[in-house]
């Protein structure tokens, strides 16, 4: 039912393409480059239109004609970043287009000046004041026009941006929603809105126009809010609806998979993306993260060199190089490149966190703490930074102190097992076994990535002499390890087998015990013990079998506890 509706929405791809083409020209005329780029990318992914289908140019009004010369002149100044000059020549123009460009150049001029002035502002604390002037004037003018209802969609968007810069967030949300209603195709407005939406309740409460672009927005929001499954579903729908060639969607899906820690899938998608769009730099830092996690040195090296050739002064490039050096264990150089990325854009969140990681590798905990703190300042919802802070304090042997940070991280990613395992470990160090057990169990039930939770839980039970629970956990652990197929480095199957052998032996399940003991012999560190156990078993069996075995066999079975673990069929597993 839902699918059908969606297909209906997207049924007329030709119509969508037409809309896109017209909005591209609108954005271009107004110097909104990023929105134009987004729309163009999307338009490119759709089938080309025939000549008749091409949308007619936007209607030309009397006002437009009057302002044409001034507008053309101003636009060329604007393109050359001479904003004041552009604004000067646009003053007094009456068409909407000219008015937007006029206000927009004033805004950008203010921003540019602020940027310049921060460099030689009178003091560090004065930074905040520098930007005020242009913004306040703009706000006054725009709000007058706004209440008179004279703003078109683009000026509304600009008004929203001004409000956001003045930290008037509630009003900004209202205005952006208005702007979106006026022209749903303007992606920039959606994007600005997405920055202001902090939680799902707020997202649900917004009244947004029912347009095909809303699905893009919702998918983007779901990714931002870490609701990966919903996001992937949305993107899948979009692909099925005919956007399968869009590089934007592919990259977003890849990022979503990355957030979901579905590394293979994400890698495949990124490779596909690079084939389609070899000179793309956006999102390549995420790609490099994935390569890093998989330790794919040659691929990462190739990517780094490739990106440097394209543009070495991009944040993403610096991050990729940082990752590359980090993988080669040259942490000083890695930190240097992350610093360079931050110089290019101090609000680049990933770089702060990654730099924190590098400092951690260099055992410079205090610098790491500061880097993580900066990351948090840029974005409070960065779970990696919180997690990193937790790790730092854990290294400093402050398990109680790091609880706070791990808890924060867990709050942001409730279904990420790593935080839960970290929490569990801290609790264990504080001898809070009950909490630790809860954490490990929860980590296991949300899908343990590192397959460590069960083992830790089992060991904890073992420590507390809860042998039945311990055995159950070991059993699950063994099943888990064998069923996932691949060989994990830290797997402690031998420990589990050893314990299981002993457990069965104590409970007089000699058959199972001997199976376990035999499997123990496959591992170097448990071989001796396995053999010893086998000997013990045969001894006991001899003792039992010398009297009449038939009498005692059923009895010995009855002796086993009720919550006994079902004997496992180890033969079927191939290590």
């Amino acid at each position, binding site marked *: 039912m839902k699918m059908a509706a969606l297909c209906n929405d997207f049924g007329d791809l030709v119509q969508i393409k037409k809309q896109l083409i017209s909005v591209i020209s609108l954005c271009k005329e107004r110097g909104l480059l990023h929105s134009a780029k987004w729309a163009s990318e999307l338009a490119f992914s759709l089938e080309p239109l025939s000549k008749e289908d091409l949308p007619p140019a936007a209607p030309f009004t009397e006002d437009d004609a009057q302002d044409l010369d001034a507008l053309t002149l101003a636009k060329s100044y604007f393109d050359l970043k001479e904003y004041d000059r552009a604004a000067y020549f646009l003053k007094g123009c009456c068409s909407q287009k000219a008015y937007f460009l006029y206000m927009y150049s004033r805004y950008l001029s203010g921003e540019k000046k602020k940027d310049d002035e921060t460099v030689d502002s*009178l003091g560090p604390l004065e930074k905040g004041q520098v930007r005020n002037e242009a913004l306040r004037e703009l706000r006054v003018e725009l709000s007058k026009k706004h209440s008179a209802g004279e703003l078109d969609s683009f000026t509304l968007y600009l008004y929203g941006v001004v409000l956001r810069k003045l930290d008037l967030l509630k009003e900004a949300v209202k205005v952006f929603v208005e702007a979106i209603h006026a022209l749903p195709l303007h992606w920039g407005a959606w994007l600005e809105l997405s920055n202001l939406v902090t939680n799902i309740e707020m997202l649900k409460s917004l009244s947004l126009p029912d347009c095909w672009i809303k699905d893009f927005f919702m998918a983007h929001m779901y990714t931002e809010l870490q609701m990966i499954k919903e996001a992937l579903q949305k993107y899948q729908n979009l692909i099925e609806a005919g956007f399968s060639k869009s590089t934007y969607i592919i990259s977003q899906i890849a990022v979503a998979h990355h957030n979901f820690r579905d590394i293979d899938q994400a890698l495949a998608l990124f490779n596909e993306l690079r084939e389609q769009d070899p000179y793309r730099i956006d999102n390549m830092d995420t790609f490099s993260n994935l390569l890093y996690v998989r330790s794919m040195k040659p691929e990462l090296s190739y990517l780094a060199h490739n990106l440097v050739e394209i543009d070495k002064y991009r944040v993403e490039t610096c991050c990729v190089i940082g990752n590359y050096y980090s993988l080669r264990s040259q942490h000083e150089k890695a930190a240097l490149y992350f610093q*360079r990325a931050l110089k290019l854009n101090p609000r680049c969140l990933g770089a702060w966190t990654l730099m924190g990681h590098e400092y951690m590798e260099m055992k410079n905990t205090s610098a790491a703490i500061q880097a993580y703190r900066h990351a948090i300042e840029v974005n409070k919802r960065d779970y990696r930074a919180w997690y990193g802070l937790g790790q730092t304090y854990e290294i400093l042997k402050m398990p109680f102190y790091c609880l706070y940070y791990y808890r924060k991280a867990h709050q942001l990613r409730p279904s990420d097992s790593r935080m839960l395992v970290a929490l569990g470990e801290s609790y264990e160090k504080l001898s809070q076994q009950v909490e630790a057990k809860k954490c490990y169990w929860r980590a296991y039930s949300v899908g343990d990535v590192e397959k460590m939770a069960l083992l830790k839980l089992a060991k904890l039970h073992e420590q507390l002499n809860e042998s039945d629970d311990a055995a159950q956990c070991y059993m699950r652990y063994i099943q888990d390890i064998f069923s996932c197929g691949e060989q994990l480095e830290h797997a402690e199957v031998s420990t589990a087998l050893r314990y299981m052998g002993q457990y069965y032996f104590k409970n007089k399940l000699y058959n199972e015990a001997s199976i376990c003991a035999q499997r123990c012999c496959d591992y170097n560190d448990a071989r001796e013990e396995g053999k010893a156990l086998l000997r013990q078993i045969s001894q006991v069996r001899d003792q039992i079998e010398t009297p009449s075995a038939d009498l005692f066999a059923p009895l010995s079975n009855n002796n086993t506890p009720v919550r006994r673990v079902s004997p496992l069929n180890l033969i079927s597993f191939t290590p």
Partner: protein
Amino acid sequence: MASVHESLYFNPMMTNGVVHANVFGIKDWVTPYKISVLALLYEMTATKTPLPERRRLNKLILPLQQGPDLTLGQFLKIVEECCPQTADAVKLRLHEMADGELKDMEYFFSTLPTPFTAFDSEAYKTSVVGLFMRHMLLAYNKLSFSQVYKLYKSLQQYYHNDSDMDLTSTEDTVGDRMDKEELDVPLHESELRLVSRGPLSQKQAEYFLARQAYLLKNDENKALKPAALQEELNNMLKFNPDFAEAHYLNYLNSMRVQDIFLSAHSLLHYFDRLILSGNEGKSNGDEGYGRSLRYAALNLASLHCRFGHYQQADLALQEAIRIAQESNDHVCLQHCLSWLYTLEQMKGSDSTVLTEDSVKMAAHFCLPYLASLGIQSLVQQGATQGKTAHKLMDALKDTDILHWKQSLSELIEISLAQTTSIWRMYGKSTMALQQAQLLLNMSSLEPVNFGVHQNNTEAFAVALCHLAELHAEQGLYGATSEIFQHLKEQFPPHTQHAKLWMLCDLKIQFERHMNERKYHLAEPLVKAISALNKTEGLYRKAQVLKALGRSTEAYNILQRLQVHCEKTKCTEIIIRVMLSTSELHWESSGFSTALPLLLQALTLARQHHLQSLVSESILHLAFTQLMLGVPERALSVLHEAMEPVLAHGAVVDKGRTMLLAARCQLAVAGFRPNGQALAVDTLNEAAVYFTKLNCKERLRDVHYLQAQLHRSLGQTLQSNKSAMLFRLLDQELQSPAPPVSMQL
């Protein structure tokens, strides 16, 4: 689009990707306001002003230098109040600069007296003024071309904004007024504030933080309101997120409003920042960095302690102790130890051994503060455990010597408050009164900072509460309510120590209603008391139930209470519970069953030197004996309590003692007129006490006895008079009198 915005957040204070608050070592910089201050200083050095005006101006200098930037109007107004001529001169000078050209400003800076040459003037380089001038000159000389121009522009704006304002005499700057007229939508509040108040320079920010922190500690009422302070801090952190101290103040502020979430967040944030700065200081190197880690854990422990999360606090404390041990930091360990025994005490377990250890170690490491804090804690524990008075007093006296030597004024106050409490506990009201007065009348020993005497501490709250109770005991309810009024002002309900006086107030009201037999008024108070102190609330509930005649329920509660108090070693309540239980026994005429209980109570009270409770027990004992028919014994027992009660007891106790004495005397005398005459005097005295308290129920009993007595003595006139008084009271009270014999 988004990324275009993002890239504009360039931060010049950043090198190698790390933001430094102070790369250039700029602590202060030139603003138009600072120029006006400079102009003022210049005028003051250049011209001769008459002495009184000069003095007033001198007093002004420091606040002007340290305070936040003012608008020109405010600034000139302040100066004008001191010396109109100087204000005019300053204004003229600013006018010259603002209406002239850039070179006028440059000229002004070049004519400033250089602190290095002017040896005999106030602007010598080491003076406060000289230092300020040097700062300003240095900051001015460091400005680049565009910065100088910008400064001049802002000076012009500063001057003109203000001179326009004079015409309209509104508080806002011109820009604001324009906005307000043009805008239908009201300007956002924070935006307005931002305009009216510029960002602070680091010096100003430091001053602001220091002042607010001091006020929070010493006189919370004078500090900014929590919300306002929060806004200021947010503002400050927005301009400079690296100002770590602001986070700490944020933590303190959140503690005021009991916001665990925000306070924990700010505390950790502060220490995250501090850890870095500690590392940067090369002088203390790695040591400094580890140090802040330890104290971070310790502070976290204290935070959880404040919010009553004892288990969490314990864990944090263990951690602090472990790291401190690893790095051999004895001082930190000592702090941990003193927190440890505090925590144990809060949890209600015995921590004497720990405390003793702490005192010994602190003395060994020459930490007088911690040592005497430990001793004070020991004294407190000793007092509840029944150590003899002279030992406690000796200990306190020894620590007092230490305090005076080291001038630990905070501890002196605590010590005095503690002495007050101890005397009160022992039932020596006069001594308690004297100690409380001593504390309250002592002029503060702290240097008076920011015009605030340190009188917002727990010690003062405790002393004032005792004072209130002492007055209430003497029936001086007017004085009591005045004290509470003061307490309410000093410790508003949301503050940390407010619970002390709230409980005290409730108790006094409760007692009063009970004495006046207005049980329906006393009953709702029980709930309020329980909210503040469970044990106390339970005890009061039992009392109300007993008075209302619901004996079974009262008995159950008392039994529960006794078990609980024996566990927590709350001797005072145990004795009270025993006395109340014995009163319940009386109601069922079980006088002989009450006796062992009373004797037990008496022993316990004697053991702990609780004089007032000893007297109370004796009173009960005597009454029981009277009821058992041995008035002679009762009278002799009573004589033992008479003296302390008359010397230290509450008025109601005095009255009760006299009434009981009279009844004993009557019983002993039989029909001998000699004894009866004695009883007449005693009764008269009792009547005086009860009248003072307006305790009509008991007064009625007294009149009844008086009437009887006079009649048996044949004094018909007096007898009739007493009878009439009795009748009047009886009509007024309208409730049937309980049998006289059943009540103490």
